[in-house]
């Protein structure tokens, strides 16, 4: 049962097709997670004690429990409280929520490295806090934590593979299906790995290019 390269090649087209599911979901999730993560960060910066206490528990839960279980909760437990979501919506909701927390935590780290001077200048000129967030803090923050966000994006792409447990047939599930009928789990997994590698390298590369572009308008 040695490694059969021809078999690997023969399944790549089908795997690539299945990867479109992951890419599509990941794109939506990343966009939502960025938006919600930013909002959560701004919310936390208001330092309203009860709110931040709740946020702290949510963050601890999301960081502390497996993503798989969070996905289960979104799809299988939420119907018990009257929220019956389709698999894709539940998956997007669960991973976005998870990623939102990690985005916000990354922002917490990034904020500490921003020079307060330009914010003081903005305040002294009379810019209102929402404007300062939107025009001064966030643009600098995003540039600064770009590498971390790219990292998170690749994690999200990998996370979409877990959605097979809620009936989303993605690359990994397709690979498993192939393995079970061909009895070649090794080749199919390597095939899936290649597909993920290509997608994530594309993201990393795009990120690096964007980073280099930002570097031109460096801090």
């Amino acid at each position, binding site marked *: 049962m040695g490694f059969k390269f021809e078999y690997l090649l023969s399944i790549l087209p089908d795997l690539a097709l299945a990867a479109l599911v992951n890419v599509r979901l990941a794109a939506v999730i990343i966009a939502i997670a960025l938006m919600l993560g930013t909002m959560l960060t701004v919310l936390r910066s208001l330092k309203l004690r009860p709110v931040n206490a709740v946020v702290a528990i949510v963050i601890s839960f999301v960081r502390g429990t497996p993503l798989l279980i969070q996905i289960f909760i979104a799809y299988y437990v939420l119907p018990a409280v009257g929220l019956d979501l389709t698999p894709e919506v539940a998956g997007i909701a669960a991973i976005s929520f998870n990623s939102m927390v990690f985005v916000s935590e990354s922002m917490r780290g990034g904020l500490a490295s921003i020079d307060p001077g*330009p914010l*003081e*200048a903005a305040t002294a000129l009379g810019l209102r806090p929402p404007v300062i967030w939107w025009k001064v803090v966030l643009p600098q923050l995003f540039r600064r934590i770009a590498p971390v966000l790219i990292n998170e994006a690749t994690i999200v792409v990998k996370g979409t593979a877990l959605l097979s447990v809620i009936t989303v047939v993605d690359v990994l599930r397709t690979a498993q299906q192939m393995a079970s009928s061909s009895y070649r789990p090794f080749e199919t997994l390597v095939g899936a790995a290649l597909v993920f590698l290509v997608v994530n390298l594309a993201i990393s590369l795009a990120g690096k290019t964007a980073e280099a572009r930002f570097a031109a308008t460096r801090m």
Partner: protein
Amino acid sequence: MTAQPILRVSALSKEFRGTRALNEFYLDVAEGEIVALIGPSGCGKSTLLRCLTWLEQPDDGFIEVAGRPFGRALMPRGVVRRQSRREIDALRPKIGLVFQQLNLWPHLTALENVVRPQTVVLGRARAEATRRADELLGRLGLADRAGRYPHALSGGQKQRVAIARALAMEPALMLFDEPTSALDPELVGEVLTVLKSLAATGMTMLVVTHEIGFAVNVADRIAFMDAGAVIEEGPAREVVANPRTPRLRSFLDLVLDRAQVPSGETLALPQTE
């Protein structure tokens, strides 16, 4: 002291965990007047400017800008009312502050640095704001640098962008924190020239500076500050020529002496072996 004061500071105090950075500070600046504020390191100059723009909340005392209370208002029957954030923000554009570190926004071009506050704070149309910014930058000799990002500007050019940004808001008063101290020596002259031109337009200015030469030649008045309060003030030339307090005298000795090297060998050093 000709007209109604544009800036009136009374009994301003600010303490940082044990350090009294401002200690019942009083100062009036009249319209069109140029006041140079000098004093030793750590005497509270930067803290004053930060309190005047309410970046730091003073513990006590009052600030009036063009006759209107700023930050805190004394109401009838001695009640002190804290102004809301919105009220404070509304008055802030009246006071232009140029920071020692300039604090340009690194992610925006020079032009955008000047345009953005106008559109956002004053609600000016973009075209109008751009026109004004172009004009200001042009007059400050930066017409060809408008599209550059701050990191690609020299120290003197950055300084002028920071000044343009403050001027674009049409402030009643400009505050400068050591406008030349972070500059290479060849650039100092350039910036002082700008300040002088600005003075000539009748702009009211409060300038924290170590350039005694500038203070003497351009300022109407010098205020010498020590330990959080003004301890001597008067017409610029007079103050420098005839310091009354011993503290000012020794300060001036130190600062004016810097071109000469102290001759006494006060420190014993090990012989090289």
